């Protein structure tokens, strides 16, 4: 049992998770509602010899963490809607050049400046498709501080394992909510360190030649292997190429390394699903209301269960289909106009039984909001 119990904000739980995972470098720019992540890391990182830098803008902070990752460090930035939009160009660069990094997006209402101090989950699709071109991405989320902590550790682990940017999709409500966090003891959670090449000095190192398992051992900038990193399509040395075979293979590699490992990447929790007639699918702070309602109604004998997604991208289609197989109806509970709903409808056998319980007015969706929709659906005889 942890002796280190804290009563803190979700954004701080994210900071604690990042420190536990071994973050060494953070670059950021002030933006509501994610600023606390930067503030706390500006204090904590130098205490352990890490580096914090407040950059001139969101773009620069994304670029700076990529530079720092290449020198062999675990890196992170944090932002919200408008900043997340600005970072997309460099997120695409990190996808293409396969640079491990973690980007926390504490979601607020959008589009544009939107609703800076209020909750939203409107960036789900942006996390998937914000940057241009075909690519794959990992996006994780959580609904309570203990899970924010562990999912942040997972984010670093997955970034290092798959050499990819990982998006942490938090939201304003969970980011600013205060609740208990028990910080695990050292060793309680697994930490993945970067896979580095064992090629000795003087032997030709191929930074972009995947091993049989698809992984690419890295070499730190400053080490004895000197190689090229670029956002252009590139060959195994990292040198630009527009050879159709190389372009084709690289794009397939970039997507396959994530999509083919969906089972290892998928994170979820389930509540009362075994005999559930009605399944709520939710994530982030919305899931708190979904779980609350399901628990209350279970006490009255209603067969309601919850599938809480903790990884949204790559979308766990097979999991969702399987968990919804026996349901009379599925309610996707989210704070946007149906971004995960679209994915769920595409995943299940009977999309006509999938409904949306949502809010997108800056207010947290409540158990009552969900219950109201549930009753309408039940009234229709579904």
């Amino acid at each position, binding site marked *: 049992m942890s002796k280190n119990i804290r009563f803190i904000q979700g954004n701080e739980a994210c900071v604690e998770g990042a420190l536990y995972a071994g973050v*060494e*470098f953070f*670059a950021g720019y002030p933006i509501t509602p994610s600023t606390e992540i930067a503030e706390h890391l500006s*204090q904590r990182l*130098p*205490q*352990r*010899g890490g*580096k914090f*830098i407040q*950059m*001139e*803008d969101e*773009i*620069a*902070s994304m*670029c*700076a*963490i*990529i*530079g*720092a*990752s*290449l*020198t*062999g*460090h675990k*890196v992170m930035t944090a932002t919200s809607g408008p900043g997340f939009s600005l970072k997309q*160009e*460099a997120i695409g*660069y990190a996808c293409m050049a396969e640079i491990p990094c973690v980007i926390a997006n504490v979601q607020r209402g959008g589009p544009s400046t939107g609703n800076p101090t209020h909750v939203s989950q409107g960036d789900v699709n942006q996390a998937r498709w914000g940057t241009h071109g075909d690519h794959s991405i990992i996006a994780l989320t959580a609904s309570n501080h203990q899970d924010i902590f562990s999912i942040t550790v997972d984010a670093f682990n997955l970034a290092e394992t798959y050499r990819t940017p990982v998006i942490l999709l938090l939201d304003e409500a969970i980011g600013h909510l205060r609740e208990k966090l028990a910080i695990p003891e050292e060793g309680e959670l697994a930490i993945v360190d970067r896979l580095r090449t064992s090629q000795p000095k003087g032997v030709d190192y191929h930074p972009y030649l995947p091993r049989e398992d698809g992984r690419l051992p890295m070499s730190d*900038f*400053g*080490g*004895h292997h*000197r*190689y*090229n*990193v*670029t*956002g*252009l399509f590139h060959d195994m*040395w990292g*040198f*630009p190429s527009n050879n159709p075979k190389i372009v084709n293979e690289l794009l397939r590699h970039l997507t396959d390394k994530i999509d083919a490992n969906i089972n290892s990447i998928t994170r979820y929790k389930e509540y009362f699903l075994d005999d559930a007639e009605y399944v709520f699918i939710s994530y982030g702070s919305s899931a708190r209301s979904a779980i609350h309602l399901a628990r209350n109604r279970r006490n009255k004998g209603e067969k309601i269960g919850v599938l809480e997604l903790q990884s949204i991208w790559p979308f766990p289609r097979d999991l969702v289909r399987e968990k919804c197989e026996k349901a009379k109806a599925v309610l996707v509970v989210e704070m946007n106009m149906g971004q995960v709903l679209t994915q769920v409808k595409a995943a299940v056998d009977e999309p006509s039984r999938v409904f949306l319980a949502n809010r997108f007015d800056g207010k947290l969706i409540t158990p009552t909001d969900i219950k109201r929709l549930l009753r309408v659906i039940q009234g229709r005889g579904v």
Partner: protein
Amino acid sequence: MAVKDYLRERYFPHMWCPGCGHGTILNSLIRAIEDLGLDKSEIVMTSGIGCSARISGYVDFHSLHTLHGRALAFATGVKLSRPELKVIVPMGDGDALAIGGNHFIHAARRNIDITAVVMNNRIYGMTGGQFSPLSGAGVKATTAPYKTIDSNFDVVELAKAAGATFVARSTAYHAQEATGYLKKAIEHKGFSVVEILSQCPTHYGRKNKEGDAVSMLELHKTNTAKLGSKALENNPELIARGVFLDVDRPEYCQEYDKIIEQASKG
């Protein structure tokens, strides 16, 4: 070592046009590094996008070819995370001062120990000859068929005002002089800027009737004069070459080390 020992010959021939000044600047840069006796593995060359940016692929250093305008932001992450590395950032004029203008002034303001080399040919070459913020007024370009009305930045004045602590200017014609300034810039502790005028006969020269590479190189000679020279005194219209600023100011990574020391004490 010979110059070619610093090059990745595997990637040649390079993609620069015949007569381009960028190859000469690469030569000046490599000679500076050779003279300083730097180990290739202690150098990170970070570049953005454009003709100039391809320079990083051709050199046998750690090379980071990034996004248009963002080279200094990436370089800041490299340098702060590993201050013992020498970070050199060659950039084009559009790359450094249009899309990258904000990063340029802020890197200068921080006085982070990075050497920025602005390879100024006053044109966007890779996209086919559009005017840049260093073209200045009265220049013809594919996006200025009636000539530009935009004023240009003076890189030297901008870098000084923004907080750079070493600022110099030379040209592709004055290759040995450029090597000297680059050496000083790389050795300087703090943010150093070397503007090197380059020629683009393919786009700028042709549009503006400046002739071939040889006549454009001749212009580097006749249009410029050494700082403090009689020629410059007699004709202030000439572009000054020389070291404009070389001062000491606390360097960013060293200052951050003090923060770490303070924070570690609890």
